[in-house]
């Protein structure tokens, strides 16, 4: 599997996802600078975490309008998997690849901690190695991860099985205390209609190495490696 990671000025978790992908696929992803004129052929496009353009204006808003995102959208529409993590989720949402918006955390503060996620569907290339209902532990690190969409959109996401992850307690219950950022219906990650685009706020890439304390993200990258082999 050949992955390509898009770099914007201010991206800062590109190496984390690079290492997680390389560990599971054995192949180093390409890093593509946002001003490079062509996007190489890739089996997976990753928009990584960070503070693209310093989060000025609105998180992800400026990167979403950069020329390379037109190409990313075109690829997504023809079926290429596109993964947006954290700031990448904000960017691809701003770019219209996914519905809704990421608002400021309800605490108005940055949160960096391990959280529990319930895998809501195993029907995607990102989650096929998990069981639906499985609880995993992965970190979050964001200031604006409060997912919001109107009721119809949320109903539709749920009805079509497009909610990939929800914040939950260790026992798997979607309790309010487990939803630090205040996301609508505790949503942590969603899929597009074709299920090839996934955006999520948590960082599975920081939970793939037992030495670093949690391995809840291993299944995520194993799913991709298996699906895109």
């Amino acid at each position, binding site marked *: 599997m050949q992955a390509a990671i898009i770099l914007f*000025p201010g991206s800062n978790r590109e*190496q984390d996802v690079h290492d997680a992908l390389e560990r599971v696929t054995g192949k180093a992803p390409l890093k593509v600078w946002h001003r490079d004129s062509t996007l190489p052929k890739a089996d997976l496009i990753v928009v990584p975490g960070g503070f693209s353009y*310093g989060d000025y204006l609105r998180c992800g808003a400026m990167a979403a309008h950069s020329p390379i995102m037109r190409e990313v959208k075109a690829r997504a529409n023809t079926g290429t998997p596109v993964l947006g993590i954290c700031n990448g989720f904000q960017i691809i949402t701003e770019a219209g690849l996914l519905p809704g918006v990421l608002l400021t955390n309800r605490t108005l503060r940055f*949160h960096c*901690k391990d959280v529990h996620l319930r895998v809501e569907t195993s029907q995607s290339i990102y989650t096929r190695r998990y069981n639906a209902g499985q609880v995993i532990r992965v970190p979050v690190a964001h200031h604006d991860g409060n997912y919001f969409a109107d009721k119809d959109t949320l109903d539709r996401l749920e009805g079509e099985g497009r909610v990939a992850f929800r914040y939950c307690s260790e026992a798997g219950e979607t309790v309010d205390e487990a939803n630090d950022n205040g996301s609508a219906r505790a949503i942590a990650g969603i899929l597009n209609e074709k299920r090839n685009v996934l955006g999520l706020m948590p960082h599975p890439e920081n939970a793939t190495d037992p*030495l*670093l304390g949690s391995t809840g993200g291993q299944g995520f990258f194993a799913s991709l490696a298996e699906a895109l082999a």
Partner: protein
Amino acid sequence: MSPDTGADAAATLDQARQFGLSEDEFKRACRIMGRTPNFTELGIFSVMWSEHCSYKSSKVWLKKLPTTGKRVICGPGENAGVIDIGDGDAAIFKMESHNHPSFIEPYQGAATGVGGILRDVFTMGARPIANLNALRFGSPDHPKTKHLIDGVVRGIGGYGNCVGVPTVGGECNFHPSYNGNILVNAMTVGLARADRIFYSAAAGPGNPVIYVGAKTGRDGIHGATMASAEFSEDNESKRPTVQVGDPFTEKLLIEACLELMESDAIVAIQDMGAAGLTSSSVEMAGKGGLGIELALDQVPTRETAMSPYEIMLSESQERMLMILKPERQELARQIFDKWELDFAVIGRVTDSGRLVLTMHGRTVADMPVGPLVSEAPLYERPWTPAPALPELAAKTIEAREPIAALKQLVACPDLASKRWIWEQYDHLVMGHTVQRPGGDAAVVRLPGRKKALALATDCTPRYCAADPKRGGAQAVAENWRNLTAVGALPLAITDNMNFGNPERPEIMGQFAQSIEGMREACLALDYPVVSGNVSLYNETNGSGILPTPAIGGVGLIDDAAKSVSLGFKREGEIVVVIGETKGWLGQSLYLRELLGREDGAPPPVDLKAERHNGDFVRAQIRAGVVSACHDVADGGLLVALAEMAMAGGIGATLSAPQDQPAHAFWFGEDQGRYVLTCRSADALLQAAQKANVPARVVGKTGGAALTLAGGNAISVAELKRLNEAWLPAYMAQ
């Protein structure tokens, strides 16, 4: 030049005084110049000779610290210290204060503190891999404290999170002496190749002088001077001297500089920190024994009609000065273009030994570099030793029931969990944080390697106030112990000396004696000082802070997988205390928090025992015998045990010896101690006996409570609730 009108006119003694220079210093400047300096030149003298830049009160004492060792590649004097960590790798690190700005404008003050220390480290060719901070706030009851905590924490997070360097550790405590003068000390650790270190000495007359990064504005003018004076009630009016940070530009600057450093383009490089373009250009020329000519109209500015004085003294952030090989100038320009940063040729290196500044072709300053640096005033200020305080006998101190006392201690501001703070810092970005905040030391693995660095900051200011020499030694020893407790070999430190007004003999005495204590500890522990920062005049309306020599330490772990953390790991393990427990209660938190007393002599630091015990513990960790390890510090043994129980979510049954008062045994703050757990104590105790290291079994892990044999118990859940509740509740008030 023709000193005729306006800024070119000769400066006056009154102006010099306003800039913080004494009459003698003004006369010295006139003598060096051979005439009276003009306004711009006077500004340059005043910042170069400020306490902040010249270390004029502290230098004679700092020279006493050991700064060399087989691991030291570069000691104090450069942007940061450099040590050899094997395999051709180098660790580059430094800690620096941003105290005054953080009190005036907490968000920007703390944020730019982080930005400044990051630049000091990547200037030398290192990619920053970890940030730490040491914070001291006033009493929680003081009306400004909450606002200051909120702003400082947001500022540190806002900057560090955005640049994508994990903030992995630090310390935070409270004392009324910081009510009007908080301390914000930030530390950065970077990783470089030992054969690719970049220095600041200018070389090659004719080489271009390049300005890169953000534009220059009118912010932070005279920040270094402000940081070199006492505070008074009017400090609110000094807000314009605080710089404004832009972490996004800093992130681009890091990437651009590191990309350029892959080539051979750079002759010398220096960040523009305190005193901005002035100190960077003067220091580069001074170190190279050369001169420098700058055309100030070429400096990228973000405001119109800036005067030479403003351009030279601005402390706008995210700027660097470089001297390049002329043939590599275009390559460098392309890299900075890619990162959308300003790149301007603003001058050239000369062999004149003079700093010559021009504006639109007219010379506006012309001064000798050598004397500006080497003839800076140096003071041997008078000092008086701190009066010795009496030793307090444990039996004269009221005994409280240990579990009740523990409940109060784990919830007191100094010992309460600081999770609320460090969860606002991205401590995981870069993906190498092996041990997160909350333990004795953070452990950060090096990319692509097995080995890791252990990092911690430490100081116990109440000990330093009671006995500065003991306190100085204790700060170094505790730091060394914290690194040892995770299994690291401590290699070197950076120091951040925060003190009051050095013109007062008792403050100078605190400084001198703290240095003496640090010196002895550094020598005994083979733990040299490779970089540091001095922050004096931490006083408001004549009332000084507790002397606070904060120590930032770096240690090496050969195999990250072998580091241990403090949490109890399994039920049924033996709990062993290493080191002698005499029950020293003077200056303890027990005394302060339960009995409201801040008195007595602080615990002595037996450096021989410290080293001996630490070397033993490290060897046991490396041998794989130890499942958890924690140093015994603030609060004493029972607090250390409670912290291990809370971190592991496992209780323990504990017993105290009969021949000692229980409160002294559980809460005494004797130094040089560790708590270990292991599956079977026999081998460990035998090894300790053989090594002549005091070791005592105090209990066994298991259950959901800490239970004292023949006494009370408390559940680990209740301990956690008490420990975690205070700070979030306080901040939510």
